[in-house]
């Protein structure tokens, strides 16, 4: 039975037509076996383009369609739907990637055109063998797991919870809030971070649809879109969460009269006791005990004054152990955030060597009313700085550290310049390479700060050293070329603030593997498409939001969190998701029951039917990798959409004219 194949070549404006002679390709396609028409059009993905396919199927009785355009990962669905609307089984469509794989990567029009012809020939040969297939649908469980409870996780959780969905919010720190909870003010509006964040934190805690697990880690993820089985370990805080009311009695009563250990929330600028609350608005407002510093937990020999203090509440439990939770969710949102650049990697900035050098995040804590100095900007030596240098691009835009721009540093450096001036009246010098203030109200903020008399020096800081070595003076010289004055500036200051860049979390790679998604080279989680699928990943049902995907400010983070929530919502409300029907199946008559295939399958989808003495595949479990197909010695296993014959034809096709 001879086929009636229609071939469509997309110009994609000039994207393809600029490098591939689309007319010639269309004419050539028309000459291929079974092809009844070869057309080219400016934008095949546009309505007219799709209509055309639909009409041709009806009028020209097409029974196969080949579309040569962009990557199938982008528009395969579009054209399948178009064909379906024309009354054709959607799997009778084959796409040819002549944009990403051809026009965009080659420079010689002739050979690019040749390549297009070869690829189309392969598709034509292949599509002729296509079989009609039915969509594979899997139901979506309504629960959502959100990993990371910074502003992104919090916002996504509330959005979903308010839509009536069940949310599990897992945070590894003892409190939710993430980095935002550490900030003092937020640019460009200078509203106080706590004032806008803590209400959201409270509603997360009180929301009936949100199960909030702090001080917990996701340890195992099984299953697939619609049906993920997740294991969470709740680490012991040695305080029973639902009994503690955060009254701090135990903390006051601790045998340590003063805080003795660097307190994590204040980046070690303050001290805490072994039993502590991360910060006053911590959520949940539940104390925890640090096993590494608590005498009782270390030696078992403590007066346990904390237990007395807690009294009848009996919230303290030194016997507490990690608790393992198993949950089932349909979708997952990763909002695991970022870590700040480690300034020690640039030794000549003297962080960790000169006490006068601070990271921006440390200064956020110093100017914050709930910080270690109650908002007083005093340095490690107890003095207020009279002059402060703020260094931009520390660990950003530098091949020796991170090539990318961290996006937020210019703005927060300006913000800190303003705050420092406001709190101390010090002379402030901002050393920048390029002042990047793209955003609503950003440029206005820049001029406002400039107007406050902050010195803006265009030059990357090249060196920081003590003003007079030996004599123990704390003053530092910040050396940079003032590229506008064209002279080397050596500015003596009391305090240096490093505008550190953002980096992927240290364990981003483990997390990535745990959830089976990809990372960009910088370690940020990779979105499915940089523009059209910014919160999707290559794994269905897993979405990303906030800085785990790349540096961004709070507004963008919140927007992205909303988007991720919406994507999850869309899946949940659809109730089911359509999957590629590319699963494997057994041709019973061919199967010798040799069991070769069984160990091949990572999803244990294959078993052996012992009375029939053949293998059987559980289609629900099969994800369609095709590994078993390639392994079967008797060729009894086949894969929909990737049948051996189809691939052999494709090979013939690309090589035919040799």
């Amino acid at each position: 039975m001879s086929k009636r194949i229609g071939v469509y070549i997309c110009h994609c404006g000039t994207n393809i037509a600029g490098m591939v002679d689309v007319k010639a390709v269309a004419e050539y396609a028309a000459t291929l076996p079974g092809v009844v028409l070869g057309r080219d059009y400016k934008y095949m993905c546009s309505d007219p383009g799709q209509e055309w396919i639909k009409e041709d199927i009806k009028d020209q009785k097409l029974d196969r369609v080949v579309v040569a355009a962009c990557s199938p990962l982008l528009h395969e669905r579009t054209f399948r739907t178009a064909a379906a609307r024309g009354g054709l089984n959607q799997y009778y469509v084959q796409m040819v990637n002549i944009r990403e794989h051809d026009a965009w990567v080659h420079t010689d029009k002739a050979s690019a055109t040749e390549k297009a012809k070869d690829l189309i020939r392969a598709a034509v040969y292949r599509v002729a063998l296509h079989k009609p297939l039915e969509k594979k649908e899997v139901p979506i469980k309504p629960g959502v797991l959100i990993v990371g409870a910074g502003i992104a996780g919090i916002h996504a959780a509330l959005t979903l919870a308010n839509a009536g969905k069940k949310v599990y919010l897992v945070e590894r720190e003892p409190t939710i809030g993430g980095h935002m909870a550490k900030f003092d003010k937020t640019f460009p509006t200078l509203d106080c971070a706590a004032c806008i964040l803590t209400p959201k934190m409270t509603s997360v805690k009180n929301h009936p649809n949100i199960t909030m697990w702090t001080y917990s880690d996701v340890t195992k993820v099984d299953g697939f879109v619609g049906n993920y089985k997740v294991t969470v370990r709740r680490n012991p805080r040695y305080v029973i969460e639902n009994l503690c009311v955060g009254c701090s009695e135990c903390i006051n009563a601790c045998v340590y009269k003063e805080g003795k250990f660097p307190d994590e929330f204040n980046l070690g600028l303050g001290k805490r006791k072994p039993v502590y609350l991360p910060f006053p608005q911590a959520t949940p407002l539940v104390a925890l005990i640090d096993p590494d510093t608590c005498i009782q937990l270390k030696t078992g020999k403590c007066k346990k004054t904390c237990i007395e203090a807690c009294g009848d509440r009996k919230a303290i439990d030194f016997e507490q152990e990690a608790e393992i939770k198993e949950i089932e969710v349909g979708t997952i949102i990763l909002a695991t955030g970022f870590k700040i650049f480690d300034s020690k990697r640039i030794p000549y900035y003297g962080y960790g060597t000169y006490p006068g050098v601070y990271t921006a995040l440390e200064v956020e804590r110093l100017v914050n009313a709930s910080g270690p100095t109650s908002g007083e900007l005093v340095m490690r030596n107890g003095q207020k700085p009279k002059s402060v240098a703020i260094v931009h691009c520390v660990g950003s835009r530098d091949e020796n550290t991170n090539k990318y721009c961290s996006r937020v540093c210019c703005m927060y450096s300006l913000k800190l310049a303003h705050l420092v001036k406001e709190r101390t009246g010090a002379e402030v010098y901002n050393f920048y390479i390029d002042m990047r203030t793209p955003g609503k109200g950003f440029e206005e903020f820049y001029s406002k700060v400039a107007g406050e008399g902050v010195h803006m020096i265009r030059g990357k800081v090249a060196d920081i050293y003590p003003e007079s070595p030996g004599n123990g003076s704390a003053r530092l010289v910040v050396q940079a070329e003032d590229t506008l004055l064209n002279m080397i500036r050596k500015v003596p200051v009391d305090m240096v603030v490093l505008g550190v860049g953002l980096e992927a979390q240290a364990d981003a790679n483990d997390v990535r593997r745990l959830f089976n998604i990809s990372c960009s080279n910088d370690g940020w989680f990779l979105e499915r498409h940089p523009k059209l699928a910014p919160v999707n990943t290559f794994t269905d049902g897993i979405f990303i939001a906030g800085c785990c995907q790349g540096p961004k400010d709070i507004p963008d983070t919140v927007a992205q969190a909303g988007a991720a929530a919406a994507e999850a919502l869309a899946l949940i409300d659809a109730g089911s998701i359509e999957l590629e029907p590319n699963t494997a199946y057994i041709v019973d008559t061919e199967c010798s029951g040799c069991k070769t295939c069984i160990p091949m399958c990572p999803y244990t989808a294959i078993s052996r039917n012992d009375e029939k003495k053949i293998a059987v595949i559980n289609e629900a479990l099969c994800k369609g990798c095709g590994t078993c197909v390639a392994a079967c010695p008797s060729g009894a296993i086949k894969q929909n959409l990737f049948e051996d014959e189809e691939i052999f034809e494709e090979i013939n096709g690309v090589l035919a004219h040799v």
Partner: protein
Amino acid sequence: MADKPTFRDEIAGLLHATMGNPLDMCMQCGTCSGTCPVAGAGFMDNSPRRIIAMINADLKQRVLASNTYWYCASCYHCTVRCPRGIDITELMYGLKRYAIWNKQSKEGLIGPVFSETFVKMIVRTGRSYEPVLATSYLFTLGVPEMLREAQTATSLMLKGRLPLLPARIKRLDNFKRVLKRIIPLGEPEE
């Protein structure tokens, strides 16, 4: 190769020979100048950053007239710190070569005149071992005389006061043949 390469192209070409350092990558941040001990001490009339800008702007005469590259101590500190991976020290070497060649010959390339002087010089210095490392004069001349000797590197170069062969080199003839194959122009005087 169609039309005559610009100064910028020429310098880029020089750099390519030393593992390619695209000046186009320069973002004018001034890390090089801020790091440079000599610029920092105020000896350079143009900072290294400015030199790069001038090259990219094709200001050949102003670049060559600048003292910057002759003041480079080749300490490579700028090179390891450049956020755009530009080997600035190598650039300074390139400019020195370029300047020397151009003083010597009509256009660009190693002109015959220079090659000749150069090969002669090699042979001569090959016989009388005379290190350029100023410091090594100390034991022969003593500091003040040595400093009176001081000249610009160019003149020094062409006066042939370069260390090449320790007096004891044995296979001098082979050695000369080796060098002839590298710079074929001109005949070494025997």
